């Protein structure tokens, strides 16, 4: 039992970036755009947070969001304005981000030793004293609360605002949305920017709430996992939240294995989230994707 509490705490912590990125990707995909460059948004956000988190984590997060959005702007330009293939452009943007952050990071010289101030945890009095789940749920960095708060907020926004309605219509039937006066390109660009901003924020949280440092390729496929999570969650915020928690827990296993000194090869434990993705996609991945997802042409 004593191992369960730290595991849960770690699970919530590893869930946070996945959840933030997945919620953003949900919005983007509901508008019909799959952001394969999400991995690039995350690594760009992580690097931006790393270099600018000098004073407070807030500046780090702001920089992370801007970095994610700058990747998203390129995707919006190519995929929406120029109507190019979303997957190819997204793949290139991920390569570009990984390349640029790697180059800049190495150019900094002896950077491996650099550690930035991480966000302190904000424990909620009393609630965080609850045994086992107390610290996992109520003694997390502020970003974790934000991540979980995003889920109902996004649900509400998609269901109860006309902007959310328009967004869903654009992913479903852009011609119909256009005929009803919706500015399709504007909606898609906004959705991409929102999704990539959250991608950047997810990257920032990797640095500021978890690692406290930057490493090349530290996004480690989280962007791609997030895309899988969105499919597993059937493009609905609540489903996406559940899937994120499952994957966060799978990633947290590695810490448990280390802590317990189990005689399992570390490399095999690292595989778990990826293997889980394949199995889960095979078992549950067939849902109702937005009709126009990934299509370059919208009419």
């Amino acid at each position, binding site marked *: 039992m004593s191992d369960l509490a730290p595991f849960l705490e770690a699970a919530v912590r590893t869930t946070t970036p996945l959840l933030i990125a997945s919620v953003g990707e949900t919005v983007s995909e509901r508008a019909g755009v799959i952001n394969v460059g999400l991995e690039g948004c995350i690594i760009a956000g992580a690097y931006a947070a790393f270099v600018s988190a000098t004073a407070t984590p807030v500046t780090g997060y702001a920089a992370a969001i801007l970095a994610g959005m700058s990747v998203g702007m390129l995707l919006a330009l190519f995929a929406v304005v120029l109507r190019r293939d979303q997957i190819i452009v997204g*793949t290139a943007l991920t390569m570009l981000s990984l390349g*640029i952050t*790697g180059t800049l990071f190495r150019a900094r010289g002896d950077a491996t030793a650099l550690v930035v101030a991480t966000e302190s945890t904000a424990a909620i009095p009393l609630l965080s004293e609850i045994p086992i789940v107390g610290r996992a749920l109520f003694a997390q960095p502020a970003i974790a609360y934000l991540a979980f708060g995003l889920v109902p907020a996004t649900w509400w926004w998609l269901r109860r605002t006309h902007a959310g309605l328009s967004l869903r219509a654009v992913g479903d039937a852009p011609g119909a949305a256009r005929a009803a006066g919706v500015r399709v390109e504007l909606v898609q660009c906004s959705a991409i920017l929102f999704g990539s901003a959250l991608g950047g924020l997810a990257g920032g949280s990797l640095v500021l709430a978890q690692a406290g440092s930057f490493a090349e390729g530290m996004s480690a496929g989280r962007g791609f996992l997030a895309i899988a999570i969105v499919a597993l969650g059937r493009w609905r915020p609540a489903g996406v939240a559940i899937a994120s928690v499952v994957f966060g827990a799978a990633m947290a296993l590695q810490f448990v294995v280390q802590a317990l000194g189990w005689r399992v090869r570390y490399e095999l434990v690292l595989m778990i989230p990826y293997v889980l993705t394949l199995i889960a996609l095979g078992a549950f991945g067939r849902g109702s994707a937005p009709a126009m997802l990934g299509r370059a042409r919208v009419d």
Partner: protein
Amino acid sequence: MIISLAAAGDVVGVLEAFWRGSLGTSSAFFSGTLVRAIPLSIVGVGIAIAFRAGVFNIGGEGQLLLGAVAATVVGLPWSHGLGVAGVAIALVASAVAGAAWAGIAAVLRARFGVLEVISTIMLNFIAANFVSYLVRGPLQEPTHVYPQTELISTSVRLPRLWAETRLHAGIVIAAAVAVGAWWFLTRTAAGFRIRAVGASTTASRVTGRVNVERVSAVALVASGALAGFAGGIEVTGVTYALYENLSPGYGFSAIAVAILARLHPLAICGTALLFATLETGALGMQRDAGVPSVVASALEALVILAVVAMTGRFVRIPWRTVRPRASDAGVAA
């Protein structure tokens, strides 16, 4: 990049380092650049076949690693008795392993509708961790010091073409693969099916009576076979052992190689050489001028974006299937 160049200070020095690293000396060219172009070209042709069918195989990296594992397993010292056949067996095994690895994604796509973009990337991560596991676990060399396997026996190594360099017979194979793929795509019914499915799944199904899912799966598996094959060639021709960073991202660079060549197998030989030059030059810059070599991957991404921006939807590209004939002049109806 501009920042990194500025950080390096001396632009001329950087360019000199690039030149020395890639083309400037015969050893750089024959032992470095040309050798690097071999896997890039073979994987690139594989990627082109998949992309032609409209299947986005982003998993060349993982398929290449699995091919390398297979070739290593065949080539370890127990293969001493095999003689020349050993190379052939190792290469066939590598292609089969790559095909099987891509086959997982193909089955997931055909049976469960899983986007191959996601599944092939997941398989990349699994393959990388699997190789780490092998070279630190069951296949680690006998002294258990280094994270790598034993060297493969000399009989399963590809012959060097020119004694003073590291240039090996793989370059001939790579050229043959490109020509073969070109012939396959333009002349055979199976190749035309792949192009037709990539251009229009609906017209292929309705008018062509083509089994679209099967053609997509075949293209993905063939693509994986070539990537695995490239991994086998890398092990039998260059590294002679399996270790973690065996591939410096060939699977991703090959996407840029294929797209810049507009998915034309013969053009891929040229673009593979171009990107190999870029990468060995970048390594030279890192060695001699302190510019990080990952800059090459950013440049490759920019090349993809530039080509995509200029050519529109990249799958729809001119492809001459019928040779011009003299009698055609002025026949226009």
